[in-house]
């Protein structure tokens, strides 16, 4: 459904924009209906940039993004853009910053109505909103007419998802939607994503928290400095991380039942720096994705950084 091919984004930075910053480099990935793809990586690895490119908030410097067979770059003009957003929506990291603090939270629905459902009668619209709220398990009485600060992060995040559901979306970009939430509310939101996936939505789930990526996603994509270093079915990637970077990342994740020492020990045992990609004939430090197992690729770019 969503396809990224060799997508690259370069920012000009510095005085006169003289320097180039490669935020995303030659990323390939695909999201199918009913699939959750998690993008995982350190801060600055280009995750949000990819998400924003998919949402057309920024334009790729090179490469193509296609959605349902149509090139996203070809979507031009206000009307076409609106149509695109009818299908593809996003939810962002900080629920508090997603709401305009001077308006009530349900204004996000109002905006959708003003742009997409002008003709809907008030009653029909209300019904529609309530249905969406029900989907995200929110009580309309509790959230309508309230200001963002009066709602919890989890509620706000769910409002945002409900907002996306008001449209006929096929694809959701969820950019770190749970990192700002308390542990106890986090899981609710994740579960909600799971439900949506069951409804056939494709989800691009962006996170730096590996355990969360693992919980919800079907495919994991590990990003490092704008490049995909490992990509594969989530279970496989987490169980048998191939790229040293993935392994190191995993070992740093604080886990309830494993101490860091134990993780380190496990890492050492697994052969710390060996890259199975190189072992399979990739040029050490410079090879692109090498398929290890069906759908499990590893890339090694250390030499090019």
């Amino acid at each position: 459904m969503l396809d990224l091919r060799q997508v690259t984004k370069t920012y000009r930075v510095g005085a006169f924009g003289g320097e180039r910053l490669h935020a995303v480099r030659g990323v390939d990935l695909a999201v199918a209906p009913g699939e959750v793809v998690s993008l995982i990586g350190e801060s600055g690895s280009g995750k949000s940039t990819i998400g924003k490119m998919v949402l057309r908030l920024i334009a790729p410097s090179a490469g193509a993004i296609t959605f349902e067979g149509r090139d996203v770059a070809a979507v031009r003009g206000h009307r076409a853009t609106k149509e695109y957003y009818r299908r593809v929506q996003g939810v962002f990291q900080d629920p508090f910053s997603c709401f305009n603090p001077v308006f009530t939270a349900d204004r996000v629905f109002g905006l959708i109505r003003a742009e997409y459902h002008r003709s809907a009668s008030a009653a029909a619209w209300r019904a529609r909103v309530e249905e969406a709220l029900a989907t995200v398990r929110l009580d309309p009485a509790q959230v309508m007419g309230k200001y963002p600060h009066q709602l919890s992060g989890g509620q706000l995040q769910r409002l945002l998802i409900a907002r996306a559901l008001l449209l006929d979306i096929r694809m959701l970009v969820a950019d770190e939607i749970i990192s700002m939430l308390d542990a106890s509310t986090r899981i609710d939101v994740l579960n909600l994503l799971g439900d949506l996936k069951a409804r056939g939505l494709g989800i691009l789930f962006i996170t730096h928290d590996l355990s969360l990526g693992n919980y919800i996603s079907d495919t994991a994509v590990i990003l490092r400095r704008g490049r995909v270093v490992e990509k594969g079915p989530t279970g496989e990637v987490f169980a048998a991380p191939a790229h040293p970077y993935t392994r190191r990342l995993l070992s740093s994740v604080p886990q309830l039942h494993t101490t860091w020492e134990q993780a380190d020990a496990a890492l050492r045992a697994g052969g710390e720096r060996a890259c199975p990609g190189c072992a399979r004939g990739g040029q050490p430090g410079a090879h692109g994705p090498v398929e290890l197992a069906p759908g499990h690729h590893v890339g090694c770019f250390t030499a090019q950084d």
Partner: protein
Amino acid sequence: MEPDVRAVQAAEGLPAQAGPPERRLGESLHFALRNPKLLIGGGVVGALLLTGLVAPLFVQEGPNVYVGPQAQAPSAQYWLGTTNFGQDVFAQFVFGLRSTFLVGLVGGGIAAVVGMVVGFTAGYRGGLVDEVLNMITNVVLVLPALVVLIIAAAYLQARGIALQGLFIGLTSWPWVARAVRAQTLSLATRDFVDLARLSGRRAHSIVFREIAPNMSSYLFMTFILLFGGAILIAAGLDFIGLGPTEGVSLGLMMHNAVTWGALQLGMWWWFVPPGLGITAIVGSLYIMNVGLDEVFNPKLREL
């Protein structure tokens, strides 16, 4: 002459909004009613404004009409005395207040509008648009405004107060543009802006309906400073004889008093009220502004 930019720069540290409107309003009101700076400043400005609005209604003849004896000290009949020609200084003062407020309103308003449009556009659009607007801003900033105004003032064959305000407005916006741009830049990174785009909003409505409301208190304070600044600039122009050629303003009164020898003749009643009026209006506006800052900004509130 120019608004106290610094107060606004300080306010840039202001968290874009300190809570939602209904609570903010309530709270702001609470603090507003307890803020002596705001109360005193607002009170003085309000009183003068009211005088300027209402008192002229009770003045029978125009401010320039020769109604009484010449050069008379304040008396029960002529509260502020009369000019060399027998014009009622009080009548001139109240009409002058009116036009002084008008200049402030027009000048401040136009500067605010231009500054905001430029600032919003530069901040939101970024890129080349930003560069070009920045350049324009810089040019206007270094052009010595008063000199340009002098030239512009001379260019106009007949000058009204509103026109004067217009010209002042057109030269005093750059710092607003800069400040608004900075604010917009930071607000534009907020996710709700992206969300509005995802909702199919067009750029201008994002700027004016999403970003601007978040800066409302800031914009209001900016306007107040511009208002005061415009009054001072106008007074400067009036003083060197490039003021409006019709009507009265406090600056013009000052100019007339000086050219007609009010100082030598000891006619303080002609000379002091307009100067004091300007100082009082502008000073109170500034004080009010600091008060507002304290009200809007929770960090500065004192309990």
